[in-house]
């Protein structure tokens, strides 16, 4: 066995609503590429943030190269030799490659930045990575793949011994991905340790020496690629039983309420379509970046549609603005509650009624009616807030989500597009939201539920559509689908098996 460089013991991180990482123990060896996989919300990002100094652990210890690690900031991490390559790159587009590599550590001569020395050093680092980018190029002119290389060069320039990469290939083409893998193999030979976070199973198996699976913030297992197939890994990522978390399905009607055909959105959706029937709950699965949010936003009039058609109850509708969709009875609950779904510094009443103010008076708003309406929604959804005049920023995630839902229920929609309705919500509120979705469907509304949590799709939906690269690649019957089926379709492991 090789010597460990990083040892994590009983690491825990609590957030107000959830325990993101739960007594996690893990060992990473010097010079290996170690894959970390798990569903969205498994605790991968939180773990990486703690390792790179962006978050502090609530409890537990990290030992790096034999020394206990107490990081207070990203620059602390860099000092001991840990560098993180984020999914969103941290480069300054207007500066040159060399300037970016040595940003904050400029080489100076007599107090002036020594451009020449920096460029020579940058060139050496880039050559080492097998790249022929000129150090003088402005970063904004580089492709994403080249920018990633600049980030890696930057990490190497501060002598990083541990490189953490968060889904680096999500934004790369096939060819660029292969080039990146070559670079990573080379780094491994130079003795750099790499933690590679991803949920694309084929590439993880191909690249990594060992793979650790996380689930619900806990350690599940560390395996070697030859010990576990992709299916085994998928099973490890999702394996759990939350059977009675979900209400029993009730039968849905036959009337088609929403019909979308051949929808195109530039760069995201390439000819996706779906049908929603009265009382039906349809799940939409897919990895982050599969275009599912953009598809729903196009139906809600929030994104420009390049092609395709949408009909409500058989009649074609034009959806040029969000208000058009609201008038057609379509409501879209955003996955991004804090910046899109709610006005955090407005209160419960103001948020609840904002999308439907027309209903509260022709000229002057009836403030009593606004209040009563917010009150009744809060009661129905079981929103726990001290006063209705409380700013929603002071509510917990679950209660915020209920206010966001109430805003859309107030418009009396017939079609609800719910994007990650249970994200960042604790388990109790989750169950209430499931029950609510079930009731809304039973009342005759058609519901599209976008989610990265496969158990909730399987537990709640009549049908599950899977999206990949802007297309619907398969449809599964809700009660017969397995997480493996969904994962296979979403990650493109197996061809569609249409139910």
């Amino acid at each position, binding site marked *: 066995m090789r010597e460990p460089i990083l040892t994590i013991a009983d690491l825990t991180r*609590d957030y*107000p*609503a959830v325990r993101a990482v739960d007594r996690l123990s893990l060992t990473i060896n010097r010079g290996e590429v170690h894959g970390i996989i798990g569903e969205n919300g498994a605790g991968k990002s939180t773990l990486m943030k703690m390792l790179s100094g962006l978050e502090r652990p609530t409890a537990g210890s990290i030992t790096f190269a034999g020394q206990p690690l107490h990081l207070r900031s990203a620059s602390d991490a860099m000092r001991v030799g840990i560098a993180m390559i984020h999914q969103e790159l941290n480069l300054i587009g207007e500066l040159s490659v060399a300037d970016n590599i040595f940003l904050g550590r400029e080489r100076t001569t007599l107090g002036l930045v020594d451009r020449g020395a920096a460029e020579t050093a940058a060139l050496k680092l880039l050559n080492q990575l097998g790249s022929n980018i000129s150090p003088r190029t402005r970063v904004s002119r580089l492709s994403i793949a080249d920018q990633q290389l600049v980030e890696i060069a930057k990490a190497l320039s501060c002598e990083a011994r541990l490189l953490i990469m968060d889904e680096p290939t999500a934004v790369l083409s096939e060819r660029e991905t292969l080039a990146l893998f070559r670079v990573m193999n080379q780094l491994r030979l130079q003795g750099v340790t790499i933690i590679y976070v991803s949920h694309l199973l084929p590439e993880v198996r191909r690249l990594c020496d060992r793979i650790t699976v996380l689930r619900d913030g806990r350690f599940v297992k560390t395996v070697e690629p030859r010990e576990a197939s992709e299916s085994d890994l998928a099973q490890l990522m999702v394996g759990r039983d939350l059977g009675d978390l979900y209400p029993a399905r009730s039968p849905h009607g036959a009337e088609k309420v929403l019909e979308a055909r051949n929808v195109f959105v530039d760069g995201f959706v390439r000819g996706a379509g779906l049908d929603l029937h009265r009382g039906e709950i349809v799940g939409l699965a897919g990895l982050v970046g599969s275009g599912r949010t953009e598809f729903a936003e196009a139906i809600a*009039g*929030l994104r420009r549609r390049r092609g395709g058609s949408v009909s409500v109850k058989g009649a074609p509708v034009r959806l040029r*603005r*969000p*208000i058009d*969709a*609201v008038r057609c009875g379509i409501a*879209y609950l*955003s996955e991004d509650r804090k*910046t*899109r*779904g*709610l*006005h*955090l*510094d*407005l209160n419960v009443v*103001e948020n609840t009624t*904002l*999308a439907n*103010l*027309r209903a*509260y*008076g022709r*000229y*002057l*708003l009836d*403030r009593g009616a606004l209040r009563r309406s917010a009150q009744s929604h809060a009661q129905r959804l079981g929103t726990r807030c*001290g*006063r209705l005049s*409380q*700013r929603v*920023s*002071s*509510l*917990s995630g679950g209660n915020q989500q209920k206010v966001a839902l109430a*805003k859309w229920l107030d418009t009396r929609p017939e079609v609800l597009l719910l994007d990650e309705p249970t994200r960042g919500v604790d388990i109790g509120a989750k169950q209430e939201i499931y029950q609510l979705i079930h009731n809304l469907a039973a009342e005759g509304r058609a519901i599209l539920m976008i989610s990265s949590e496969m158990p909730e799709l399987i537990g709640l939906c009549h049908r599950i559509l899977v999206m990949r690269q802007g297309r619907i690649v398969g449809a599964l019957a809700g009660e017969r689908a397995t997480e493996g089926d969904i994962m296979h379709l979403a990650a493109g492991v197996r061809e569609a098996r249409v139910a």
Partner: protein
Amino acid sequence: MIQDKANTPAAARFGWSDLFEAWGGLAALIGLAAFCALFPATREHFLNPENIRNIIHQNAFIGIIAVGMTFVIISGGIDLSVGSMAALIGGLSILAMNQVIGLTESPVGVYPPIKYLIGANVSEGLGVVCACAVAPPIGVALGLLNGVLITKGRIAPFIVTLGGFAGYRSIILAIADGGEVRSGSFSLFEAVSSPRHGIPLPAFEFGERTLELYITWPIIVFLLIAIVGQVALSHTRFGRYVIAVGSNETAARYSAINIDRVRMVAYALIGLCTGVAAVLLASRLNSVGASNTGNLFELDAIAAVVIGGTRMSGGRGRIWGTVCGVLILGIIDNMLLLAEVSAYWQGLVKAGVILLAVLLQRSRPA
């Protein structure tokens, strides 16, 4: 438990800063007025009802604009063009009035000598009505121009209205050839903003004198606009939308609000206010100085809004706070005047008051 601590309602942590955030503007106004009423150098004259009436009268012009500015700032914008716009609109409305008076007076030509049919006073009256009638729509048009450039042209409000600041001033300078636009009305136009016209108060004894005060038209217009503004902000759909757009534009768009329209209407509204203020301002001196009328109005209006507790980044604010802000600025001028402090010091004192007001009213970081 961590969870409970984070969710404690704000009311449970009541403190002075909350109180100041809600009522700081009014508190500052009362404090300042009390100071002036007690301070030896100002005590004698400050409390004279005529002095107080004058303070409100003199600051009503800025006040009207500041009401519009409150909407623009709450919506997340800014308008630097109002001072120049006021000069331009004032000049144009005087030109329109002179045209009407001139036309009706012309003894020959295409137009009949209406003056001799309807009398000189009537023709002057028509001119004044015309001036008052053209100013507000011109204001709305100029405000909409700003709004269209900002929303459809996607240019930052600061830049667009900085352009207006330079551009509108330049137009009126060109029209007046660098001088002033003089009114052709003898006395009627002046009466609009004169301290000796308006709604009379019953005569009363003050000290040894009998005062016959008027609540002047600018004061009445200012108060009406402020009341309508406060109602519009807190009791109409438009008001809610302005707050929503300023608080979080993206979330407003996702709530199916037409954010471009909301912002455009806010700029049209400040244009309307500026138009009204412009014609009152023109009547005050019976002329418009191309280079000095409305100078620095934009900054005084913004200062009043900020002192009133409206958040500079948008999303939160109140009209009554702005009214307090306008009065605070007016009292400072008055106080220094009464205390015989050099006018050169006014700027420094204002600066101190603005900073203090904002310091007291800043909300705690979330």
